[in-house]
């Protein structure tokens, strides 16, 4: 595995494609996070809220994206992670997680991150600032 600090401006981390979103994914996340808003797990509740079906927790997608950086956790840590949620994620959506390096600073590396669905729409995007250890 290469080192994160070897990346050049404009390079991307290896993208990750998630399995199609399943109800069980969201039930597990509800349990693990404590977010039991029923629009994420129960069809009728989602429909009552005016949605075509249940939607993923925004924080489920945000949590998933951070794993792009997990292989480098011995080299540094996520200092800042900022996301704007732009579109809803539905059951069976196929999400691709991406991170592209924006700067040329080997101490505080700034990435533009995004989660993109099968319609090439960004469902969320933002910035990760990865602080590299200097020792």
């Amino acid at each position, binding site marked *: 595995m290469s080192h994160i600090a070897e990346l050049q401006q404009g390079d991307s981390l290896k993208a990750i494609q*998630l399995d199609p979103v399943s109800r069980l*994914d969201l039930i*597990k*996340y509800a*349990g*693990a*996070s*404590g*977010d*039991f*808003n*029923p*629009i994420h797990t129960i069809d009728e*509740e989602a429909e009552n*809220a005016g949605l075509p079906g249940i939607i993923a927790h*925004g*924080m*489920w997608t*945000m*949590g*998933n994206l*951070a*794993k792009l950086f*997990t*292989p480098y*956790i*011995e080299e540094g*840590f*996520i*200092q*800042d*992670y*900022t*996301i*704007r*949620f732009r579109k809803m994620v539905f059951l069976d959506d196929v999400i691709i997680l991406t991170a592209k390096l924006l700067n040329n600073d080997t101490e505080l590396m700034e990435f533009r991150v995004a989660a993109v669905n099968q319609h090439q729409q960004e469902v969320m995007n*933002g910035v990760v600032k990865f602080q590299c*250890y200097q020792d």
Partner: protein
Amino acid sequence: MIKELIGKQSEPVKNTVERGAVKKFAQAIGDPAPIYINEAAGRNSKYKRNIAPSTFPVTFDFGSISELKLPNKGLIHGEQSFHYKRPLLVGEDVYCHMEIKDYVEKKGSNGYLGFLILNQYGMDTNDALIFKEKSMIIINETVRKEMLV
């Protein structure tokens, strides 16, 4: 009026970064890496112990502000950010509180939307900051009326 609550803070609540909770959370976000869940991997790492994923603070109790009654339904999470001084360590105690940072209403196509900014803080046992979170929550008119009942 929510706007009058700007500046209000909750009393800090002690949370422990529990091993089992971290494992369950890491699995739920599809990131069950050894650094989070394997004790030997943690011991042999730079951190000398396991750490928690960056979005793990969503599991913490940040206390409550009695005047702010956010419903379980009908809220939209617009934006979220985390700022860390260092990663969270498995087993450590974190003292968490929140603050109502800002609230504005803007006219949308379905009446006025409320934009609530909550800041949440996690401090170590010496009262030094470990992380700060900022959430922007959108509250529509229907939900807002229910909150006032």
